């Protein structure tokens, strides 16, 4: 269903422009992912107050990537960025065992929002390389 809807959207979008939304708790790795997509240096990342946006050209597509800060105080503003989202990437820090509950709760709330209905979702299990990362799927 996800792929199909992306393809449908692409066909109706002659400019081949996509809006990607990166969400997740603070310290999940959203900004690092954004910088990685833009082939920028990822060793100097700072916590996001507010949001970052970058336009990336990738295989003929212009990706407008929105990276919204994940700290609790900012989460109420997430919904201001839902409009016209083509793909939602939800980033999870696999080594943050304590906040697994919190992150799944936030995701559940996101999925209940009308503005995100039908938007394809990618849950990005980040930091798999850390020794403290949870195995996938969880045993």
């Amino acid at each position, binding site marked *: 269903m996800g792929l199909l809807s992306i393809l449908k959207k692409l066909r109706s979008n002659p400019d081949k422009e996509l809006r990607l939304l990166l969400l997740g708790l603070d310290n999940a790795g959203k900004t690092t992912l954004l910088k990685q997509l833009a082939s920028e240096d990822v060793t*100097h990342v700072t916590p996001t107050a507010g949001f970052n946006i970058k336009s990336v050209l990738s295989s003929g597509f212009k990706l407008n990537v929105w990276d919204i800060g994940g700290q609790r105080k900012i989460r109420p503003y997430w919904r201001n960025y839902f409009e016209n989202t083509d793909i939602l990437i939800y980033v999870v820090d696999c080594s943050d065992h304590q906040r697994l509950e919190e992150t799944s709760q936030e995701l559940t709330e996101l999925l209940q929002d009308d503005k995100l209905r039908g938007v394809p979702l990618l849950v990005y299990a980040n930091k798999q390389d850390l020794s403290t990362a949870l195995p996938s799927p969880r045993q």
Partner: protein
Amino acid sequence: MIINLWSVLQWYLRPIIKWFLRKTTRLCELQRICYGDKAGAPRTCNVERSLMLSRTKDIKEVISHLDATVAEKRFTVDNFRNIFDPSVAIIIRAKQINCKLHGSFVVSIRRCLEQIWSYRNLVNEVEELRRIQFDSNDPSHEEKLLKLWSLLVPNELLESRVSKQWQAIGFQGDDPKTDFRGMGLLGLENLLFFASEYPQASSHVLSHSHHPKYGYTFAIVGINLTSMAYYLLKDGSAKTYMFNTKRYLPDINLFHRFYCYLFYEFDKMWIESKPQNIMEFSVIFKKFENAVRTELADPASVFRINIEVDTI
């Protein structure tokens, strides 16, 4: 293309112009700079440019010797005599300057050399601090973090090391350890210096960050300002600030002062902008950076924190 042509022209023209000026003024380029340009960034930056463009073998050797001193970590203030006396002597000999006639040149060129290489040394030092990740298993790191709390919130005890209270000084969650990220220990040292050396300014700024309408996250904004200060230092923009400070040579404390200046000024701009909410941060932060860069681009700019009476 035009730039290329210009650099080629400059390569051939520079020695001719220099020779002509030397004959007419009877002063070498370094002397003309030291006598003609105002002490501080205008003079030191021009001396640095002149030295770097020099094709004289002795001058090139002085440069690589001083760079090696920095790279090998032998660059300390106690060592200044050993570092700079021979360098100044070589420059005077290479440029055939009469020390008796030009005593003030000797003083002035020495000051320039001290500033230039202190700056280069500082870039290394700051980079090293940035690379140290905050480590909660390191007691000295933990101590610094707790000290930051006691300085910023002297009337409230931290209930436990992991606590919601950290959010009061603008960390993201219950444990600040993950907030330093790519700025490492540098971010913490910056905040600590602001809180300890400018208690009045930092508590003024912290109270603004609690403003019901224009509030922001103090520590997180602080870490982003560390990043700004770091890049301004690395690309050389901060030279204006560092070289125009008469009392200090560029060193880690001067870098901290530069950071404090940025923090104080950012806070001022933020409050004056009357932002709707924290989501305007990126826009105002960029605007602030541009304003700072414009100011630093003028070598005559002098920077200091002027604490003003609050009107909001």
